[in-house]
C-alpha cells in the first residue's frame, strides 16, 4: 500500500471487502496469504472427515471417495 501516494481510504475500504468478505463459493480461492489458506484447508478437511464418520447434514453433498479438492 505504500506506493499509493496520498491515502486512498476508498481503496482500503474496498479491499477490506473484496478480499475478506463476499460470498465464498467452494471454488479455488487462489489469493494467498498462504497461512490463511492453511486455516481454510484445515477446516474443510476436518469437516469432510467428520461428515464421513457421522453422515452429512441435510442438503450437503460429500465429495466422492478419493476425490480431493484443494
Amino acid at each position, binding site marked *: 500500500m505504500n506506493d*499509493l501516494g496520498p491515502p*486512498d*481510504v*476508498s*481503496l482500503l*475500504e*474496498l*479491499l477490506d*471487502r*473484496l*478480499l*475478506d*468478505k*463476499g*460470498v*465464498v*463459493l*467452494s*471454488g*479455488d*480461492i*487462489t*489469493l494467498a496469504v498462504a497461512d490463511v489458506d492453511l486455516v481454510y484447508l484445515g*477446516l*474443510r478437511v476436518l*469437516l*469432510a472427515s467428520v*461428515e464421513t464418520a457421522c453422515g*452429512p*447434514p441435510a*442438503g*450437503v*453433498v*460429500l*465429495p*466422492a471417495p478419493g*476425490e480431493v*479438492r484443494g
Partner: protein
Amino acid sequence: MIYVYALCDGPPPALTGTAGLEQQPLAALEASPVAAVYSRHASASPHPTPDNAWCHEAVVEALGPDRAVLPVRFGTTFPDLDALGAVLRCHRRWLQAGLDRVRGCVELGVRVLWTAPAEPRDEEPAPGAAPGRAYLLARLAEQRRSEPARARAEHLHRQLAAVAAEYTRPGDRGGQLLSGAYLVPRGAVGAFRRRLDELGRADPQVRVLCTGPWPPYHFVPQIPLGEPMHA
C-alpha cells in the same frame, strides 16, 4: 478459467455495457432462480491490484439496483462452467435466501476514531518490590481508561443499528473505537447519514468515517463447506 464476480436474481441483466477483468466480456450462467456473472480467462488468478479491484467492484455495482446482488470474494475461479453450475445448483436455497435478505438494501461502512484525552499516567508505581502485581495493575488501569470509550462506541452503534436492517457486531480494531457495517434499505440511507452526522457533531472527541454505498459484502450467506458431487 472462469472468474466469478457476483450472484444475482435471475434472469441475468444485459451485460454489454461493462467489461470484466483484462477487458474480457461478461457473461451469465443461470441456475434459476439465481444467476452468476463471470468472465473467461486463459491464465491463472488475477492480482488484487487497485485497478482489478475497482473493475470487479464496477461489475458488481452494474448489476444493481434493480435486482438483489451478492458480491463474490475477489479471486473466485472455477475450471469450467459445469463446476460453477454444480455449486450454484447444490447451494441454490442458501443463495436464494441470501438474495432475499439483501434485496433493496445497500451496505454502509462506519468507522469511528476517538481522540483520547491526554491523561497523566500516575498509577504506574516503580516495579521494584512486586513487578508481577504491578504488571496486572497496569493492565487494569489500561482497561479502566478505555471504558468511557467503549460506552460511547456502544451508544453510537445502537443509534445507527436502529436505522439499519442488519449490522455487524461493532468490532474495535486497535485504535478505532468502532468499526461496523450496516445493511440499510435504500430509502433509509438519508436518515442513516443524518443520524451519523448528528452523532459526530454531538461528540467532539470522535471522528467519523462513513463509506458506501457498497454491495452487501458483509451480509452474504456462509455457504456450508462441502463439495458438490460431479454427476
